[in-house]
């Protein structure tokens, strides 16, 4: 089974990299990009039967820094 973890900076935490991407899009002529937030996607190849709770624990302990980041989990 696979899990996909999305890690994003929490709302309200300034994302300087996202801001730089927004500026770059503007300078390429893409108007109307009001905001860019950059995060990461982590794909996990897991033993069958791994529970969402276990993946959640992985996020809490390592994959996300919950001081500044939030995460979401997709299992399939």
């Amino acid at each position, binding site marked *: 089974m696979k899990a996909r973890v999305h890690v994003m900076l929490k709302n309200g*935490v300034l994302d300087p990299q996202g801001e730089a991407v927004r500026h770059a899009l503007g300078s390429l002529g893409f108007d109307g990009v009001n905001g860019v937030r950059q995060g990461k996607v982590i794909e996990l190849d897991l033993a069958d039967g791994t529970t969402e709770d276990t993946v959640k624990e992985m996020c809490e*302990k*390592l994959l996300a*820094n919950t*001081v*500044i980041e939030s995460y979401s989990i997709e299992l399939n």
Partner: protein
Amino acid sequence: MKAAVVVFPGSNCDRDLAVAFERAGAKVSMIWHKDTDLPGDVDIVGIPGGFSFGDYLRCGAIAANSPICRSVVKHAERGGYVLGVCNGFQVLTETGLLPGALMRNANLKFICKPVGLEVATADSAFTAGYEKGQVLSIPVAHHDGNYNADSELLARLNGEDRVAFRYTDNPNGSVDSIAGVLSDNRRVLGMMPHPERAVDERHGGTDGVAMFRALMDQLVTA
């Protein structure tokens, strides 16, 4: 004073930190990250700068979960001293020994230069050799030194006099210009600037010496 300096793959200030401790009169042992135990009689653990584990995932995240860091956390919980510099500061926030987080510099640039550093409190074993308000010149060299704390944490840090250093000219976007913070028992210090790179005239400055001397004075048990 007995000091232990932890070495991760990618650490690059470990020997500088060891030399700074030695010059102050400490006996220093180098501890590999796969070791599980610190020497039993160690007074202070140094977590050096560098790029532990290539900064993969997040700066300091993998190192914070290495076997030795479990012992470092226990050492701190027993009231032991810990100094984390640069990547070491990032590691300490990732272990939870220090609050807040270090993010990418606001200008997205790697910054490598001496900076003005104001001593925000002299009330710690690390800063007792300085006067509050004294301005030091200490080098920084980092890409992710932008200290992040929410307003509640910031109020707590200020209220408890736990901001150790502030930049005089904030180079990286850190909240409240914070360059270094203390734990609630004041025995764990994390800072982005490198005091161990300011302990010899040939470094271009010696403003870091007083930190290692003050630690020596405080931790003369060894």
